[in-house]
């Protein structure tokens, strides 16, 4: 029994470590100035999501969660990375700096506020489960979701906006592996497939916008609005 508790506490600590790093990458995505670095951070975030799924899989002895970890690595860390790297055009490689709607210190300050908001929203739910993992994963997942939404809103370039959306999904899944560990595998598979389609569709659309409009600064496209 004591041994079991030991493993549990070690696993909890490992999961908390993955969670902390996960949150850090979400902050990094807000602050990062280079498109390529954003993409690499997203890959790191996905690997951390897979790590958390793996730890929880070990704890629950669940083949589902191992599969989730594997799918996440294959799709997000490999396929999507490859897809988005192909989308980023030479022009952006050359320019590198991404312009943001707000400057970075303000952004980070707002991000901290969002994180506190996430804990505030999640706190009434934390008493519902006895599992220590939910206490780590739910608030961090929610915070990553909100930070991802914030990233999408302040970015002007197309690819960082895509990365923001994918980071939001990562946040939802980070909470999901803890709160819904036994979600049917078919749903998990379909959701992973769905994320791949998001990256594919938005990547193709970005290239089309680049061909047709000559820029991928989608934040500056404002021909449609209410008069």
């Amino acid at each position, binding site marked *: 029994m004591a041994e079991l508790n030991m493993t549990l506490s070690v696993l909890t600590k490992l999961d908390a470590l993955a969670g902390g790093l996960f949150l850090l990458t979400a902050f990094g995505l807000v602050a990062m100035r280079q498109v390529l670095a954003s993409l690499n951070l997203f890959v790191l975030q996905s690997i951390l999501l897979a790590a958390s799924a793996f730890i929880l899989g070990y704890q629950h002895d669940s083949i589902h969660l191992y599969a989730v970890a594997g799918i996440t690595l294959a799709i997000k860390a490999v396929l999507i990375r490859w897809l988005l790297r192909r989308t980023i055009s030479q022009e952006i490689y050359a320019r590198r700096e991404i312009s943001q709607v707000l400057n970075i210190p303000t952004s980070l300050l707002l991000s901290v506020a969002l994180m506190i908001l996430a804990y505030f929203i999640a706190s009434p739910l934390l008493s519902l489960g006895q599992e220590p993992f939910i206490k780590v994963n739910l608030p961090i997942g929610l915070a990553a979701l909100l930070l991802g939404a914030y990233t*999408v809103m302040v970015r002007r370039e197309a690819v960082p906006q895509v990365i923001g959306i994918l980071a939001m999904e990562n946040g939802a899944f980070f909470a999901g592996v803890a709160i*819904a560990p036994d979600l049917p595998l078919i749903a998990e598979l*379909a959701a992973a497939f769905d994320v791949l389609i998001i990256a594919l569709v938005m990547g193709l659309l970005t290239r089309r916008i680049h061909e047709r409009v000559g820029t991928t600064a989608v934040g500056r496209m404002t021909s449609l609005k209410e008069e």
Partner: protein
Amino acid sequence: MELIYLLIIPALASGLSLIPAGKKWAPAVTILGTLATLILAWGAALRTVRGEEVVALVNWISCDSFGALMALLVAFVGFTAAIFSWGYMEKIVAPNNPGKIRRYYARYNLFLLSMLAVPIFSQVALVWIAVELTTLLSVFLVSFDNTPEALEAAWKYVVLTCMGAAFALLGVLMLYWGMSVSGPAPFTWAGLTGASTRVPPALLQAAFLLILIGFGTKAGLVPLHTWLPDAHSQAPSPVCALLSGVETTTVLYAILRLLPILKAAPSINAEKWFLAFGLLSVGAAAFLLIQVKDYKRLFALSTVEHMGIILVAAGLGGSAAHYGATFQMVSHALTKSFCFFAAGSTLLAVGNRDISAVRGLIRTSPVAGVALLLGGLAIAGAPPFAVFLSEFSILRAGLANGQYLIIGLLTLFIVVAFCGVLSPINRMVFGNPVESSGKQKLDSANILALVLSAIPVILLGLYLPGPFAELLRLAAASLGR
């Protein structure tokens, strides 16, 4: 089994459309496929009227009366829009580009597939995926014209709705958590309703708000509607009919499905949230309608208004108001698709989207003029059309409940929107004709689509066939008391 065929036929039609076999092949396959889905959906709806639940795969693919009603709507609009596409697409696509038309029909069928999947799936996680797919499979239909405006609209559409979907995903996962806390039960709408009393209310509330925000973005609820007028006006007209007529309605269906689940926890005040979001949407849309300069945008904003009306009706509570909500969903889907066919015909006849560029349409192109006038009157809620009856039943239900303030506001907004829709339409249809360039004649497929979609708009305003009224009543009953 018919539910499986409902999913297989559009997938098959999508694949077949890509075969390069002459100009008429892809549209013909699409029309036949949609006709088959319409017949199947009709059969499924009739079975639910008899009180059966149509089951293809227990706890995964099945639908009750509400789901069957939605599938029927999607199939009907899919069918008429396919006929309209026949006459429309070859006029707006250069004749030396047959591949583009084939890709259009392939995507059209896939989009239809995803929309049919939303009501047919009963497993909630799959419903989320189907809703997300309706966005992803329609993005390239929105950007079809490949103009900078269309691409911008498509980008806004995909970014905002995918952001919403991520929130809804967390909400769905929380519902699943609630299910697993409360004991073993299938993760379906019915299973959730049964287990809802055992789910902690705090969890239900968080899940509800996340899903309301997430799917609300896609249904175009104010203040999350900003992408909707762009996407719904830039897409080719038959696609607009699908987007505005049934896509928003199917997403709203997924939100309304939460209503019976939330009955278990009165502290959440789900009805109040519906009323607040609904009234805000109706009001904002009514006042935005007044200053629109593009007639497709006019109809797109009217969709925001109607989504608000349906949400208000669902929030009023009571079986009469719920009946009004389902009736309004039907009348909106049928009428709005007709309106976009009329707008598409006008665009063909005049070659310009600006309201100010169209004058005296009834003389330059009588068919488009009459259709636009009928569509405007019908969508604004003039008698004797379907929307009038459904709005009337909502107002009457609210008055019977004694919710005078809400009904007063709703009536005010509907009247403002009525004027906002009809005054530009009046100017476009009547008045002195102006010479315009780029005119094209409407062909028989356009007229056939207009006539086919006008029939239920007029018929349901005068007379509700018995089985159909029963279907509406059963669907309303599945929203809870």
